[in-house]
């Protein structure tokens, strides 16, 4: 089965969070429940240039949600089998089995599954299953004003955009095999070397 995936262009993402709001709107999520989140990565350093010190700051944004991995740790970890791989290859949650233990969140290196406090069950991005089976894009992709998100078959995306799947602060892709491709921001390598952080943790 061909896997679907997301393309995330961190070089062009402006951090407007339209994708995040569109996702919340479509899925009727309350304000604190976020399935797609936009990380603000900030960093930089002071460098001595002859007799002065100059600052070299940088910032970029990374829109991230469940990556519907090929080897999903959440599915392996879930004690109830509520977390499962759907017929289109996305990772979904069967609410009739979920006990809300939160173990999927611990297992996921992307922090994708979130507790829905209203239902007491875990919840997460379902890749807009209802839209994808009708050959439509997930709502986050279509809402992006910068066209920094794209969606399609993963092999097509890799052919078009390359196969980079991890930049700071994401884990190495070998851990779970995320179904995504990233166009890295020019400063993302610098961020991985240190002197950088997620600046909007409180929002996540």
């Amino acid at each position, binding site marked *: 089965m061909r896997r679907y995936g997301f393309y995330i262009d961190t070089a062009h993402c402006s951090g407007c969070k339209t994708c995040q709001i569109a996702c919340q709107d479509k899925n009727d999520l309350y304000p604190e429940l976020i399935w797609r989140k936009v990380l603000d990565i900030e960093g930089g350093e002071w460098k001595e240039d002859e007799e002065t010190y100059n600052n070299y700051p940088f910032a970029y944004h990374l829109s991230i949600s469940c990556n519907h991995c090929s080897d999903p740790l959440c599915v392996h*970890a879930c*004690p*109830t089998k509520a977390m499962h791989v759907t017929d289109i290859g996305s990772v979904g949650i069967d609410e009739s089995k979920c006990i809300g233990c939160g173990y999927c969140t*611990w297992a996921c*290196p992307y922090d994708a599954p979130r507790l829905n406090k209203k239902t007491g*069950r875990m919840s997460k991005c379902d890749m807009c299953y209802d839209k994808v089976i009708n050959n439509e894009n997930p709502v986050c992709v279509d809402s992006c004003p910068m066209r920094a998100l794209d969606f399609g078959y993963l092999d097509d995306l890799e052919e078009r955009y390359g196969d980079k799947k991890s930049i700071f602060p994401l884990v190495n892709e070998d*851990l779970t095999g995320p179904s995504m491709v990233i166009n890295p921001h020019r400063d993302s390598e610098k961020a991985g070397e240190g002197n950088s952080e*997620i600046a909007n943790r409180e929002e996540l």
Partner: protein
Amino acid sequence: MEKYNLSLVLFTWLTQASVGLLVLRSIYVRQSQNDKIKTYITGHFMLTSAFIMLVAGLILSFTHLHYPAHAYNAINNLGSSWMSREILAESILLFTVLVWYIVNRMRIRQIPVVIPETIAIVSGIVLIYFMIRTYMLPSIPELHNPSFPVSFIITPVLGGASLVFFFIRKKEPAYAERFRLIASIAFVLSFINYLLFVFLSNSYLLDSPVTFVYFAGIILLILSYYLNAKNKTGISDVIFLNLAIVCDLLNRVLTLTFTNPGI
């Protein structure tokens, strides 16, 4: 974001300490030189305590579920989920300890007490292994290092030996000394392991209050051995071992509640 719940931390500690108590109780009842009836009564108190600790841990573990009505599904994924396996082992342990308690209390001669005893001890040891695998997640690097599983092995020894010491220190002081020694060694190992965790994760944790409590425990350890050497036995042993338990518990709280905030 704090990923772990305090009730789960207490569940792990109580369950592991009760497994340690069950194992060391079995050694105690076989090696004690005391009167057989007295040994039986003390052993039964230990068994009761272990059972109560297991039940308390189970109740605490239920409190972290946000939808406990579906709890019966928790052993659906035995094929790949370490948590499912942990829950199954915990259930087997609790059931066999209950049977063991009834057989021991009612003195049912048709069922040799050694049968539930052996099953309980084996399932307890297996449970600790499953617990290690459950929490040692590759997605959390701070817990995916050698010091973390070692702490799950130290706790049964420290908790179990301390509790056995508390039970027999007045009746068999000479024999109780062995358990104090075991608990003391486990405490020192717990401290070394705590330092290892700190250095393997993030050294800024060294200034946490846990470090100071551990140092207080080390001072009390030395003091209690000094007083014993001078034949001034008092409550210094009890204070030291209580503090040792508190240290190990705080260590567990720190290791399981401290995780890289991730994304």
